[in-house]
């Protein structure tokens, strides 16, 4: 049985042919075969040809002799040429030429950031309403105009510092998860702007924090009944290192109480040099969801840590983490950043949308829904888990 949708999506031929010659066939022999098939008018291209990008479509055939590839234009009778080419034993393959298109690349628009488009966040400004989303980070700039008048529960766990964000990281992450829709010429950048925002300052203005403050913040968020807890923080771990029992106990406690902790996988890879780092802590805990970062072309981000270690050290899902626009403290207001720190709150926002849609989606069930609904990507599972986190198609507000 044929699938009419697949049929409609099949690649479209240009009418031309691609000819592959067997290895070691001399250039003159290749050219002779093409001439035999299409008549006169074989043009040879080489890498130093100044006109390599300007092939006239009326040229009957083009030969890239050094690669052993010929292209027959649709300007000739290709069916006859196809048959003729197959009579030459130096020809390895003849196939139709297809139109090629750029892969999907997301871009920020006047309406929404590329990240919101990629996760399918709805335009509804009240999306995520009724769900408590906690961001544990460097605090938040409560004086930012985008948070003006908004009910935000904020608490500092950092000795000697208020919940105000003197760093910027926390305000950026909170914005991606649940920033409200600003007016004017700023695109929407918060995945679940209707969610109830809880902010736990567990990292100081210098961007560092003690484990005791982080654990205390996690406990607070769980005890406050936050359905979603976003942690764009962590530390690198060694290859083979097991998860810490304290984070594991907290992650399990959260799941048991209907909360889901989502953490950034880490930015310790240097993929251009072939180095892939393991998912850091606390994202490497079995009961804490690890989020990798992808770029606008939905390729894994160069820095994104990977599922090198098992036993919790796997990546579970991926989200936008390159070129992410969001809020930062006054007077700058907005900044574009990259990192799994930016991917993590996108998943937290998506989790809030799912939780708002179905009251049964809490804790482990919410985790399962997030991974089951992720958009599969043509990348290694150890890099992006089950794929790109996706919002429900129709969010409830």
């Amino acid at each position: 049985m044929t699938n009419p949708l697949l049929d409609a999506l099949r690649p479209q031929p240009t009418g031309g042919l691609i000819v592959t010659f067997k290895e070691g066939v001399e250039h003159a022999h290749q050219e002779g075969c093409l001439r035999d098939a299409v008549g006169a008018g074989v043009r040879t291209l080489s890498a130093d040809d100044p006109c390599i990008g300007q092939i006239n479509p009326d040229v009957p055939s083009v030969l890239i002799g050094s690669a052993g590839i010929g292209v027959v234009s649709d300007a000739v009778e290709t069916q006859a040429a196809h048959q003729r080419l197959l009579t030459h034993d130096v020809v390895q393959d003849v196939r139709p030429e297809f139109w090629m298109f750029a892969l999907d690349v997301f871009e920020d628009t006047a309406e929404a950031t590329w990240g919101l488009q990629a996760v399918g966040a709805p335009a509804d400004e009240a999306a995520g309403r009724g769900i408590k989303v906690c961001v544990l980070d460097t605090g938040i700039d409560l004086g930012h105009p985008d948070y003006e008048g908004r009910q935000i529960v904020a608490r500092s766990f950092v000795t000697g510092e208020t919940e105000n964000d003197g760093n910027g990281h926390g305000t950026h992450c909170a914005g991606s998860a649940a920033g409200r829709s600003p007016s004017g010429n700023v695109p929407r950048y918060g995945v679940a702007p209707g969610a109830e925002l809880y902010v736990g300052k567990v990292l100081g203005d210098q961007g560092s924090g003690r484990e005791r403050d982080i654990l205390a913040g996690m406990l607070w968020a769980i005890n406050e009944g936050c359905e979603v807890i976003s942690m764009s923080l962590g530390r690198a771990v060694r290859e083979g290192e097991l998860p810490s029992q304290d984070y594991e106990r907290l992650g399990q406690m959260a799941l048991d109480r209907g909360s889901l902790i989502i953490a950034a996988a880490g930015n310790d890879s240097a993929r251009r040099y072939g180095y892939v780092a393991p998912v850091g802590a606390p994202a490497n805990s079995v009961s804490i969801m690890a989020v990798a970062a992808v770029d606008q072309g939905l390729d894994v981000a160069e820095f994104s840590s990977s599922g090198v270690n098992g036993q919790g050290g796997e990546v579970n899902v991926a989200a936008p983490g390159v070129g992410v626009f969001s809020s930062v403290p006054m007077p700058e207001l907005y900044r574009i950043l990259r990192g799994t720190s930016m991917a993590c709150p996108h998943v937290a926002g998506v989790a809030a949308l799912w939780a708002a849609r179905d009251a049964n989606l809490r804790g482990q069930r919410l985790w399962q829904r997030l991974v089951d609904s992720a958009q599969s990507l043509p990348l290694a599972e150890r890099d992006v888990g089950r794929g790109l986190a996706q919002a429900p198609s129709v969010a409830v507000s």
Partner: protein
Amino acid sequence: MADIAIKVIIRADQMGQTEVLCKRLSDIGLHVDTTMPEIGVIFGHGDAGILADVAKAEGVISAEAEGGVVLAPMPKDTPK
């Protein structure tokens, strides 16, 4: 030796006995700062030389120098 911050994780079956554990660890030289009985974690400080003894104490799974998190600086070309 230097005074360091220490994180102690206690066994799950000892989580209801945090006070007893704290007393035991104090006797070894740990100055207890914070306890989190819900998850069986005790934070304190003391001379680095007591770390091995704290780790071997009855009811303790592990004792280590308390770690932390340091974010990358905020310029946009540095991954966060």
